[in-house]
């Protein structure tokens, strides 16, 4: 069965942060909440690689597994979403998430967190109507319902960040690596999906 994934081609990522602001733009994410971010490994040294990272929508997602109130669910596109009505803001998903995806507005007592927010793969939330204002206000855009991919990937400056069916984007990446002769791999895939793209 096909499933939606992200793949960041670190050999193309230039840390331009388009994905970050595209996410803010598409979902009206407030200051301090970073559904997506770009991390640079070996900054300023040979071997510098930048990787854009958000929720990887893991299989058997750790966040969902550890959630005390079971507020996560997985769509048929294999997108991992959560229900903010049920979330109690306990922060467990952040401990479990290998990618630091869950974000919390600091609303609660003692530095506690408020309801968790994270990348929805531009798939909105569990509200009834796709793309409704209510859904947008709580979860952000529902581009998938319109046949569009997450805006971060669609706007990536160098087409480094790929989104789409895992099989297709893996194929794209593989072709790229074969063509150019190098590739630092599919960052996060081993951890998220227990698989990697071998070229």
């Amino acid at each position: 069965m096909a499933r939606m994934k992200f793949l960041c081609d670190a050999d193309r990522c230039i840390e331009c942060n388009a994905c970050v602001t595209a996410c803010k733009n598409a979902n009206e994410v407030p200051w301090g909440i970073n559904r997506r971010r770009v991390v640079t490994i070996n900054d300023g040294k040979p071997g510098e690689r930048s990787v854009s990272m958000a929720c990887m929508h893991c299989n058997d997602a750790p966040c969902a597994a550890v959630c005390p109130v079971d507020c996560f669910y997985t769509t048929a596109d294999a997108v991992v979403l959560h229900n903010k009505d049920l979330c109690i803001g306990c922060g467990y998903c952040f401990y479990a998430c290998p990618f630091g995806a869950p974000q919390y507005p600091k609303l609660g007592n003692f530095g506690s967190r408020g309801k968790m927010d994270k990348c929805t793969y531009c798939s909105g939330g569990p509200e009834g109507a796709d793309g409704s204002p209510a859904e947008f206000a709580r979860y952000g855009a529902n581009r998938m319902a319109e046949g569009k991919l997450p805006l971060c990937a669609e706007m990536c400056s160098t087409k480094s960040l790929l989104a789409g069916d895992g099989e297709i984007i893996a194929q794209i990446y593989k072709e790229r690596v074969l063509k150019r002769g190098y590739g630092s791999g599919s960052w996060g895939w081993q951890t998220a999906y227990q698989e990697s793209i071998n070229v």
Partner: protein
Amino acid sequence: MLIKRSDAKVQKSRLQSALGELSSGVLDRRSFLRRAGFAAGAVGVANLPLGSVKRAEAAALTPGVAVKTVKSVCTHCSVGCSVIAEVQNDVWVRQEPAFDSPINRGSHCAKGASVRELVKGTRRLRTPMKLVDGQWQRISWDVAIDEISAKLLKIREDQGPESVFWLGSAKFSNEGAYLYRKLAAFWGTNSADHQARICHSTTVAGVANTWGYGAMTNSYNDIRNAKTMVIMGGNPAEAHPVSLQHILAGKELNRANLVVIDPRFTRTAAHATDYIRIRPGSDIPTIYGILWHVFENKWEDTNFIAQRVYGMDDVRKEVAKWTPDEVQRVNGVEGEQLKRVAYMMTHEKPATLIWCMGATQKTVGTANVRAYCILLLATGNVGSAGTGANIFRGHCNVQGATDAGLDVTSLPYYYGLAEGAWRHWARVWDVDYDYLLSRFDSKTMMEASGIPTTRWFDAVLAKKEDIDQRNPVRAMMVFGHGGNTVTRMPEMVKGLEALDLLVVADPHPTTLAVVSERKNGTYLLPICTQFETSGSRTASNRSIQWSSEVVKPIWESKDDYEVMYRLAVKLGFADKMFKNIAVENMRPVPEDILREINRGSWSTGYTGQSPERLKAHMAQQDRFNLVTLRGKGGDVDGDFYGLPWPCWGTPDKKHPGTHILYNTSLHVKDGGGTFRARFGVERNGATLLAEGSYSLGSEIKDGYPEVTLGVLKKLGWDGELTEAEAAVIAKIGGKTPDAVAWSTDLSGGIVRVCLEHGIVPYGNAKARANAFNLPDPIPVHREPIYTGRPDLVAKYPTLPDFRSFRLTNIGATVQKRAVDLGVTKNFPIVLTSGRLVEYEGGGEETRSNPWLAELQQDMFVEINPADAAARGITNGQMVWVTGAENNSRAHVKAQVTERVGPGVAFMPFHFAGWFQGVDQRAKYPKGADPYVLGESVNALTTYGYDPVTAMQETKCTLCQIATVAA
């Protein structure tokens, strides 16, 4: 096996089962989508035409409200990314990727992906403001325009027109830039400048003096054809991120070499196949170091040089001095590394050279650029696909505003300031030349270069006798220009405080509004962004794109056109200035302004790009090829995208524009060209015209001069002019009709006839390796004014003091004093500056955009771990950076990183709102302060100006860094 799969079973939680009813419709449809995609397969779908991409469903942000889709162009850099806006009720509700644009194909950088925020405008200036005894007061537009005009007229009466400085913007549309230049002309001064002065003025001077036009020769897209790309003095990964799409695609598809030569290990360098770290300010030695190997190994393109280059032998003599040892002594690079670059540029061709402000913002900027061009000429890498001087311009319309003559040395479209140029534009504008003359102090002033923006405050503070105009500057009209992008800010602040009138017309208050202690005589006018108006803008590659209005101007802001018109009315020349431009509701119609440009801009070939053609290009972007930019089908068949200038002839001639300048493999009617004959036909007995090289289909199989009526007569082609054309020429020429040239012939007849015969109107010359009219005809290395290597100054001193642009340039004196005083003892670190991807220019606009500001919240200085350790500085600590002049200092965060080499520090130039350690947030009008403030690097930068263009030195100065204030 491609993918090793473990159990990828999709889990479905209880909740989803519970919600299944609600969402099953969506899920089913999605499953269908995927299955379809799966069946098509990756390779199959790859070949689907782009044009058929359609949105599956209408957006549903506010259900039931119509969605209008508008195509505009990003306002943040010269790449020219298309932006698609979805608008409901005049609110920009969604931004969508513009997949059809051949330039960006949906992509953006951080700035482009956040432009929707600009018209939300949370921190925009909302109303006109006036500073009254140090307090901002809200005023109406009428009051603002009345008071400003009255003050301007008073200054004009008391001091003369030269005492007003008109600082314009590279963020104007072409129409806005042209209008602003026209406004200054009608006011009666040539002191009308814009950001090009501080970004690529040296490029324009250096490149135009080499082969005719001062612009990028090829395009971002064409870089895909290169086999060797050399980026020297540029960091496009941060400055032009979307260009990296083309660069990296070229690198990957061609397995091309990507050589990055820079003092700093930039985000671009991280993708290089060869990264070469040089000492800041040693560009010419580096280029000559490469050329030394080219000549030594006889790798130069002898045929190209013989046919198309003048004076290369003079270069050889200079290059011979730059042995690998001397090069290494000066720039620190091993000979073998440069030999490798020399090999690649001559054997793995086509090769292109890409540069930006690392080359240009130097006291030797023009010479640097000239050296770059010479390297391209010697290796035969100009004038064909995959080659060229790919100069990445800065602001979104800095190319267009430069072309439109928003420059102190020229009228629009590079006509210069001589009487002939004024008479040409007087004809275009349909005003008397004598009227224009009457607006100036004198004919001399009318033909004298104005004061450059790098030195306006020197022109304020100068004594009357030290400045070559009637009086010093008393008023600054600043449209869309930051104050922290110009060096020597402490002195600029003094200049600000000495002004009678300061007007800042901008979406934001900008640094100029807060940095000084002015108490009165200061006005802020809220100008809308280009998303709130319409007009054309020229991308770096000379493609012109029409940008449509997304929403009406927000708050009380107005567009540039309207504000200029209102000013012109009050200043008393609106009727003459807008004689042939329609004005609707006080707003001049940009389409009409463009038509006037089309009528007059023969020299640059801005004549064929009518608003109608440009709009057709925007609407049919999907028809253009990604690599060749050539259109296929529809109204745009055969056109190059955006009709890159020169686009010869009137719009009805359907010239396709010129994708690659000086490309002899195409017919001139089809976008071909030759090097421009701009500097005469011979010098010292040697021809300046091409020999045996000509563009495809040329009836003259050799070089030829620029075409005048006289030349046409000699060729016997004058009879082909129509009666109407001949009449226009006769009228223009008066007693000397033969002197009427292709560039001043408003009938377009000469150009038309030339094209019919396959010859290029501007002639067919050699490019000049020896530019005999420049201070250094052959570029020579000169150490920066404040150099970290005073030992080299004796051998490589800067030019002696001289006068230019109405002021004295005392670079040599300053350099000598710095060396004599041993400035490097107190300021041992070389300070260089540059860009961050999140911010643009002075940064007021981008630091006011929360989506961007969140990503860079602190001004910082990059310092090498060795230098940091020696000073006890740890990463993230606040430190004081002190500059070599004015006891300047800045309190910033230390970023300890190997991006910079030992002895070099880097600071970004986008910050302001802190000055000399003091937070100035309280001085902004309420609610218009940017989210992020910080110290400006230009508070620390020092004296130093290019002799040709007065470009400032931002890349090499000296500083000290310490944990405590000195």
